[in-house]
């Protein structure tokens, strides 16, 4: 614009040929110098005004914007401080395209280091025997899975085959042996190792050391092996150092359609391994289930708290079954993770659920107990209008009609003060002792394993006196104590709506699981209509029990109750047996009976005023403790109650009676 300021000072124009009307006009004007000058000055002034208005507008806008920012400035500091806490994503320099990997295998120690960072180190005695497997993301070098398979013991090689088959092609696999890894390494596993390109793996011998790095379905990147010289000694320690070239991010990912669900899936699959077909490129298993909605769902707005630890594979299985149950509302689910574990959080995010982490407090049972307390408090805080909460654990399968079962029964908890909880689990509901999915019981014991808690019970009674961290109590044992339960009962189904599949856990091991949980009956029928739910109320239930006892056929008490022939080979009958029970807490005969019936015998479960109800050979089987039970009046005078002698004292089994 400055150029144009100079223009009015230019010399007056000379006359020109009249070529057009415009020029004629122009010519006329040029003849009137004064007028021309005036016009030119006017134009320049006008332009100047334009410039000024422009500048003012710019200034004004600026000021308004800076005003808008001013009062937001102070808050900024706080957040920036927070931002700084985040670790730098990448150490100085550009992205590295090669990882250097060190793998060590020996009798007493294994370790794996990636780019100088130790990702596995195990030198504990008497632990971690077998083949350690680590999976790295081929694009980022992140550890995606870490497993150890004790292939010295039987069947562990099968688990290893299963796991290795699930790993996506292209991932970096690292294997190293600690102590002994060949004794039960069978041909299938060896064949798999061969297919990975390993030379030494398939030929792995007794007490050999072995370190292996390779790409799944691709080249071997390094392998070292040392044979054991004699039966009584181990191979020399081996240290394998190798470079692993990283591939591009696109190569490492599948090409799923760009949807919200697949974004979650992609995030999950780039971080962890070992979840099977959920990360399959071609045909991934769905992560959204949309089960049928439940008509007239009374538990749609009941929050669901899933109590979890660091067993992400369990959590994955559990959430799949939970989200497939009819009538589930995912936004009501909160997963509480005890500890800052990443992988369970990844599983939660995969399903688009809410996850909350809990800094562990105290140890062992008390830690679980504190985690329960925090989780329950948080659940009722997050859903301040909820009158109930469903409490689940990460090692449960949830029946397809779990919510239907609760929807049909939850009004009992509202209407009957003598109830403590509704539970989906029948302690005595084994394959051979449970039959009728439409049948409910009242029991004096609190089974847990998928149950409904009333807000008022928690807030007014349990929360204020919950065991403090220094008390190493089991929360469930504490809840079963008479001071807490105060004579109230729980509603349970005959056929459980949850299934306890956890084998590893605080109070759990393979043997215990096999003996007490594996054969539990689990309902798989959708939409079961519960029968006569209102007869479960306090007084109505007594009427119902009396009716049952009146029509029950009394069994032949001269026979051995442990024999199969104790019950006739009929179907659909109701039978009753009377056992000796001197006082309310005399369970001598019951425990023996439970033992020979192969049901829960570690403590007393499932009783209601000295009455147990179960099924035998498709007949309803009632057991009444005489004379402690008020139902003893139904005993014909001629019958002598059965008495079973406890075996001579030799063990202290009840110590293991916990179930978590």
């Amino acid at each position, binding site marked *: 614009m400055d150029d144009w300021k100079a223009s009015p000072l230019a010399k007056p124009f000379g006359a020109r040929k009249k070529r057009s009307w415009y020029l004629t006009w*122009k010519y006329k004007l040029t003849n009137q110098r004064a007028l021309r000058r005036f016009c030119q000055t006017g134009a320049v002034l*006008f332009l100047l005004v334009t410039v000024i*208005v422009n500048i003012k*507008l710019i200034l004004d806008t600026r000021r*308004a914007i800076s*005003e808008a*920012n001013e009062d937001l400035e102070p808050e900024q500091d706080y957040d920036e401080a927070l931002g700084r806490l985040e670790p730098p994503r990448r150490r100085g320099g550009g992205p590295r395209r090669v990882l250097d990997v060190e793998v060590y295998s020996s009798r007493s120690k294994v370790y794996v280091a990636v780019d100088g960072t130790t990702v596995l180190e195990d030198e504990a005695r008497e632990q971690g025997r077998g083949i350690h497997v680590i999976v790295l993301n081929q694009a980022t070098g992140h550890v995606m899975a870490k497993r150890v398979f004790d292939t010295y013991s039987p069947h562990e090689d099968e688990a290893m085959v299963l796991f290795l088959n699930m790993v996506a092609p292209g991932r970096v696999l690292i294997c190293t042996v600690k102590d002994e890894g060949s004794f039960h390494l069978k041909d299938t596993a060896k064949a798999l190792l061969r297919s990975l390109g390993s030379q030494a793996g398939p030929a792995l011998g007794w007490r050999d050391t072995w370190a292996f790095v390779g790409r799944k379905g691709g080249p071997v990147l390094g392998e070292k092996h040392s044979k054991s010289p004699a039966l009584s000694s181990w191979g020399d320690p081996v240290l394998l150092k190798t470079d692993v070239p990283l591939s591009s991010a696109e190569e490492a990912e599948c090409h799923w359609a760009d949807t919200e669900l697949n974004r979650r899936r992609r995030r999950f699959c780039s971080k962890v391994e070992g979840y099977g077909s959920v990360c399959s490129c071609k045909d991934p298993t769905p992560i959204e289930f949309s089960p049928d909605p439940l008509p007239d769902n009374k538990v749609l707005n009941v929050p669901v708290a899933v109590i979890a630890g660091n067993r992400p594979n369990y959590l994955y299985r559990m959430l799949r079954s939970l989200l497939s149950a009819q009538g589930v509302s995912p936004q009501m689910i909160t997963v509480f993770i005890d500890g800052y574990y990443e992988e369970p959080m990844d599983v939660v995010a995969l399903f688009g659920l809410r996850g909350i982490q809990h800094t562990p407090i105290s140890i062992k049972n008390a830690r679980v107990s504190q985690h329960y307390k925090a989780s329950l408090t948080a659940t009722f805080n997050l859903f301040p209008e909820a009158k109930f909460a469903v409490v689940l654990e990460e090692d449960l399968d949830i029946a397809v009609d779990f919510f239907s079962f609760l929807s049909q029964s939850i009004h009992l908890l509202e209407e009957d003060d003598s109830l403590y909880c509704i539970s989906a689990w029948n302690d005595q509901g084994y394959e051979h002792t449970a039959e009728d999915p439409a049948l409910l019981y009242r029991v004096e014991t609190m089974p847990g394993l998928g149950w409904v808690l009333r807000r008022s019970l928690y807030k007014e009674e349990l929360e204020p006196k919950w065991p403090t961290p220094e008390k190493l109590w089991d929360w469930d044992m504490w809840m079963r104590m008479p001071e807490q339960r105060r004579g109230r009962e729980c509603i349970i189904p005959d056929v459980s709506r949850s299934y306890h599949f956890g084998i590893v856990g605080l109070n759990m091991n393979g043997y215990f699981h096999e003996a007490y949980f594996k054969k539990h009956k689990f309902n798989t029928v959708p939409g079961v209509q519960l029968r006569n739910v209102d007869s479960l109320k306090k007084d109505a239930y007594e009427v119902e029990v009396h009716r049952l006892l009146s029509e029950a056929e009394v069994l032949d008490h001269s026979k051995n109750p442990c024999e199969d022939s104790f019950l006739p080979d009929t179907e659909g009958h109701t039978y009753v047996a009377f056992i000796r029970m001197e006082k309310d807490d005399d369970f001598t005969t019951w425990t023996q009976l439970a033992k020979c019936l192969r049901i829960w015998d570690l403590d007393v479960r499932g009783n209601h005023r000295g009455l147990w109800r179960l099924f035998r050979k498709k007949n309803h089987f009632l057991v009444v403790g005489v004379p402690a039970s008020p139902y003893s009046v139904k005993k014909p005078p001629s019958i002598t109650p059965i008495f079973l002698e406890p075996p001579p004292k030799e063990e202290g089994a009840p110590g293991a009676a916990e179930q978590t």
Partner: protein
Amino acid sequence: MNRINKNVILALLTLTSSAFLLFQLYYYKHYLSAKNGAGLSKSKGSRIGFDSIQWRAVKKFIMLTSSQNVPVFLIDPLILELINKNLEQLKNTSHGSTSECNFFCVPRDFTAFALQYHLWKNEEGWFRIAENMGFQCLKIESKDPRLDGIDSLSGTEIPLHYICKLATHAIHVVVFHERSGNYLWHGHLRLKGHMDRKFVPFRKLQFGRYPGAFDRPELQQVTVDGLEVLIPKDPMHFLEEIPHSRFIECRYKEARAFFQQYLDDSTVEAVTFRKSAKELLQLAAKTLKQLGVRFWLSSGTCLGWYRQCSIIPYSKDVDLGIFIQDYRSNIISAFQDAGLPLKHKFGKVEDSLELSFQGKDDVKLDIFFFYEETDHMWNGGTQAKTGKKFKYLFPRFTLCWTEFVDMKVHVPCETIEYIEANYGKTWQIPVKTWDWKRSPPNVQPNGVWPVSEWDEVIQLY
């Protein structure tokens, strides 16, 4: 040749620049009016037609929320006020018959909606659809205050605010979260480092300067300017709540530190006292709410909230404050009807009024009435034996909401000044023996009641 060209170009430029100037003048005028908000031109609204950017933005937003089942209701103070004035008329006009745009076309920068988070079923994907519709959206998240009170829980963040901009108009979605105590809470709008500070003129937002608490409103559907929106059933009540909605969170972190130092009392007596005190407080709150009387936590109860986020187990009573201008003559009878008999009454409405009611399990409810002076506030005390009067001085304060034992209650916003006036700088140290006549640093002797008045001003039951 050159000269002619110069001239022609000069003329051409003059023409374009005048056109340009005209455009700028128009824009500038528009900008000014938008900046000053609707306050300038309420009547102007009717003249601007349905093509205004405000109306279009709101329409698009409502289309979005109804198709995605986003549970929102209108809380914009400006528009609610207009609606409130014309509520009858709005209800009478049939759908679609509106010829003029009277509400949503009012010039302004923002339209505020509340989102009821607990009713929101599919949060995912909403954002993307909004962006596909032409909105530019900003999401402000933070940690969940409902987990703060619990030891060591860390959850995923919850959304607090969404700001969705369509051209020059922005929709401010304030996320309302349910809290224990049957109220709705919204968070503080705090920009994080990476956010665009110029995204919208943030300082003009009506919500988010502080966290806020609101009674859970009942909603009604109305058709405003041809758009179906939900608004609070009682817009007036909601509008009255806005200026006093500021919420302060209990200092959970400090409370935890306190309990680490002094250990919580979890004896049976402490548990029982806390339970009775909580019930008494709930009963008192309910009774006063029915009367429409504002109250706040005072003295020991306020200290318990501020210092340890719970009731001090050895305090033996519940203390409330009420402004004397909120005094109703039926307070005593209302408490008596609620099962709380009057224990004593000191002073009179004009001077040093104090009421004390007997709750269950020997827990007492003390109500102190506060008198306002130009530079301070005070409440009175009376010694029953001697008729001596005392005065407790406090710096002036305003009231804020907070959550205490699962209730939404008032506390002085300037809590620390209030507590230090009452308990001194050493309020952090628990003191079990407290003499209300001598211990407080803010107590002043205030003469003696004339004996002739004793019957009125010292009533013991």
